[in-house]
């Protein structure tokens, strides 16, 4: 709250101190800053970089300009149209995101290049479509906003728009969806395995950024009285990226600081200092490589002081949306191939009772691949995987997770830059929070009976403010296991849960696994190498070899089986 009020105060007082020229400049750059905040939401929060952000700003500007020209004299109608135009920008961004993110691309390069291309295309269209856009010289003679004559009035409108956008961004950053965006940037795969449609999340982020740019754009047209293709093209898109980077892309105010400071400075110095732009480019590269927090990173300690932190009472989570009764996992003749290599070969498994089962086998036997194919991360070439009555192969990973498949990965996989509390609540929201609830900041205080029990067993889980990266290896294993349990899955897949743990940590995890198996009541399947752990945990052991089931039985039966012995000890065949 204190940060917010100080920002508002500064915004209001600024022009009084700086005079007419600067009020005008800042009014203009405040509008660009709305697009910059949106860019920061995509780049700094969600981890993808749109290179054509001016498209949405300029599109809104052109539409707004056209509206004001068309309704010259009855500008109230144009004013009423403004919010809808901004929504159009947002909707277009969402649609583009939806189209592009559907195809998973490893590095986000595809998305960035396509947004770049769209911005160039928009510039071309704006330049050549003379009849509508006025061509290269632009849309001229746009009437101003009604009732505003003074330059400082104009400034206040811009400042108000920027403050509105900042309020929206601040709300979203604090809401569950903001946490999910940050989680997405850190570990997209893990988020999918918790049941979140990451493509949708990215599309929504992009859509919101388009909306924010649109808010600035609709005011730009009546304020500047002219809209030229520059406002939709590559130059402004590139500038936005630079301003956001230098200001600090991860913070709320960073993009604003970058735009107002660097943007207006550049406008001043561009003509006087010949290589100013080259300097800015070098500065950008250095910041991106070495100092990603940007200018606001320097002010981070101060910001921490301004942040009021009070403990709020926790709220009980909603019930799980799907039926959480234990389900039977069956693999029926499942075959998986990658290229020419057979990973799984007519594998048939049936986990029809509750209990703890261990899967063992030599390297390359297909154990983790079996988990991956159940989770939906590998496609089956043949066969069927069923969870209860539902056919599961062919579903996207987040859908499989929603059906109640919980997974703990081989290497502890949490969200390192988020707090422990955030990590745990992400698991809680999965399957329980309705889509719209993800915008409700109160959900961050959710807890559940299972979570409370876990916090009782492992007190470190209750130290909310610590980042997950600060935990020891063993604690991260327990955290990830706890997160898997919080979704109250019907089937639990644990991949080497004790890898790299000390003996104390190992017995803690064994206890947790036993407790979880009792509490959840379904099948818990554990991949393990350590035979002493297998002996402690397993009711039944499955031995995989060359992608298929070699043997199944109690530990003693497995040990006596000559086929198993041949695999482990070798022989003279």
């Amino acid at each position, binding site marked *: 709250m204190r940060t917010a009020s100080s920002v508002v105060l500064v915004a209001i007082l600024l022009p009084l101190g700086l005079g007419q020229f600067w009020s005008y400049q800042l009014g203009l750059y405040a509008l660009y800053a709305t697009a910059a905040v949106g860019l920061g939401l995509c780049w700094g929060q969600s981890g993808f970089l749109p290179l054509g952000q001016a498209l949405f700003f300029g599109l809104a500007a052109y539409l707004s300009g056209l509206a004001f020209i068309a309704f010259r004299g009855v500008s109230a109608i144009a004013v009423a149209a403004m919010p809808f135009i901004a929504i159009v920008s947002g909707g277009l961004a969402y649609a583009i995101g939806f189209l592009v993110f559907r195809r998973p691309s490893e590095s986000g390069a595809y998305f960035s290049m396509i947004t770049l291309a769209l911005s160039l295309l928009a510039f071309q269209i704006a330049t050549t479509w003379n009849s509508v856009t006025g061509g290269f010289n632009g849309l001229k003679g746009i009437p101003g906003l009604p009732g505003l004559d003074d330059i400082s009035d104009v400034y206040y409108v811009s400042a108000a728009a920027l403050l509105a956008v900042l309020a929206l961004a601040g709300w979203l950053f604090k809401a569950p969806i903001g946490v999910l965006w940050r989680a997405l940037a850190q570990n997209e795969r893990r988020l999918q395995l918790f049941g979140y449609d990451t493509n949708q999340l990215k599309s929504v982020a992009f859509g919101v950024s388009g909306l924010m740019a649109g808010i600035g754009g609709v005011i730009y047209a009546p304020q500047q009285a002219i809209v030229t293709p520059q406002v939709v093209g590559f130059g402004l898109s590139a500038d936005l990226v630079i301003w956001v980077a230098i200001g600090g892309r991860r913070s709320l105010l960073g993009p604003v600081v970058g735009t107002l400071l660097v943007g207006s400075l550049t406008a001043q110095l561009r003509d006087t200092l010949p290589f100013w732009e080259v300097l800015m480019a070098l500065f950008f590269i250095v910041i991106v490589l070495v100092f990603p927090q940007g200018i606001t990173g320097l002010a981070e300690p101060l910001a921490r002081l301004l942040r009021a932190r009070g403990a709020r009472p926790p709220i009980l989570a909603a019930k799980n949306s799907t039926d959480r009764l234990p389900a039977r996992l069956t693999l029926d003749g499942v075959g998986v191939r990658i290229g020419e290599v057979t990973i799984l070969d007519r594998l048939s498994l049936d986990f029809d009772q509750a209990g703890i089962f261990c899967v*063992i086998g030599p*390297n390359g036997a297909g154990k983790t691949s079996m988990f991956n194919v159940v989770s939906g991360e590998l496609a089956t070439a043949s066969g069927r995987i069923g969870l209860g009555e539902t056919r599961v192969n062919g579903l996207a990973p987040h859908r499989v997770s929603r059906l109640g498949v919980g997974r703990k990965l081989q*290497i502890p996989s949490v969200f390192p830059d988020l707090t422990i509390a955030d990590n745990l609540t992400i698991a809680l929201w999965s399957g329980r929070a309705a889509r719209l609830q993800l915008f409700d900041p109160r959900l961050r205080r959710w807890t559940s009976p299972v979570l409370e029990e876990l916090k009782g067993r492992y007190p470190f889980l209750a130290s909310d403010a610590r980042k997950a990266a600060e935990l020891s290896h063993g604690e*991260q294993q327990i955290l990830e296991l706890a997160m898997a349990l919080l979704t109250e899955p019907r089937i639990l897949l644990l991949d080497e849960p004790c890898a*790299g743990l000390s003996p104390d940590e190992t017995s803690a995890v064994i206890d947790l696994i036993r407790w979880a198996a009792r509490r959840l009541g379904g099948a818990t399947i554990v991949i393990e190498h350590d035979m002493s752990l297998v002996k402690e945990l397993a009711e039944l052991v499955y031995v995989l070899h060359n992608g298929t089931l070699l043997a199944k039985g109690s530990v003693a039966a497995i040990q006596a089986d000559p086929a198993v012995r041949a695999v*482990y000890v*070798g022989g003279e*065949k």
Partner: protein
Amino acid sequence: MSACLAFENLTGGYGSTTIVRDLNGAAAAGEVLCVLGRNGVGKSTLMKLLFGYLPCRVGRVLLHGKSVDGLDPAARRRLGMTFCPQERPVFDDLSVRDNLTLMRNNRHLSPFRSYFARFPILERRLTQHAGTLSGGEKKILSFVRGLAEDQPVVLLDEPSEGVQWENILHMDACIAEKKAAGAAFIVVEQNLAFAERIADRYLIVDQGRAILEGTRSTIDRERVLAHMHV
């Protein structure tokens, strides 16, 4: 006899995980050290530490008495170590011939004649892509490539995996010849019968630690079996 390759107090792993702890061992010229153990106990991690793919958290690796810490795998290769990995042992996209001659000065096959006599399958498949070979055949290809490098220290990670017994016997003969010529071997194995044929010394690993050590004459076969089998 001074050790060609020795490792002391070796501790290391991936990222924040420690897989192997405090391992010691050595192979002198003409000796084979066999590292045995079940899956996941850290045998491959040990090999990666020895060849420089992973940094040693504690301990050091000595080649001819000198530490090789900080040297990357390519540098260790140049100093006289050969490595045949367990996973992805060949270049699938290249032909068998290219796999054998890639890092040599020319594409001549004369250095491989004696190996082709033992493993005729390689000569038959010279022009085929290595990716079309069976698992055992890939291992044979990798084995021949490694031994033909003629280096003083050879590290083999499960050379017999998927290989038929008759070819395993040929591998035994090749290793014996190299031993006579003074090469030192460290071999990770899961086939006890093969290990027993080639090993001069044993190191049994479980849960990343050394459980049992010994020479051919002193090692207790029953105890070894107990640690290898489930």
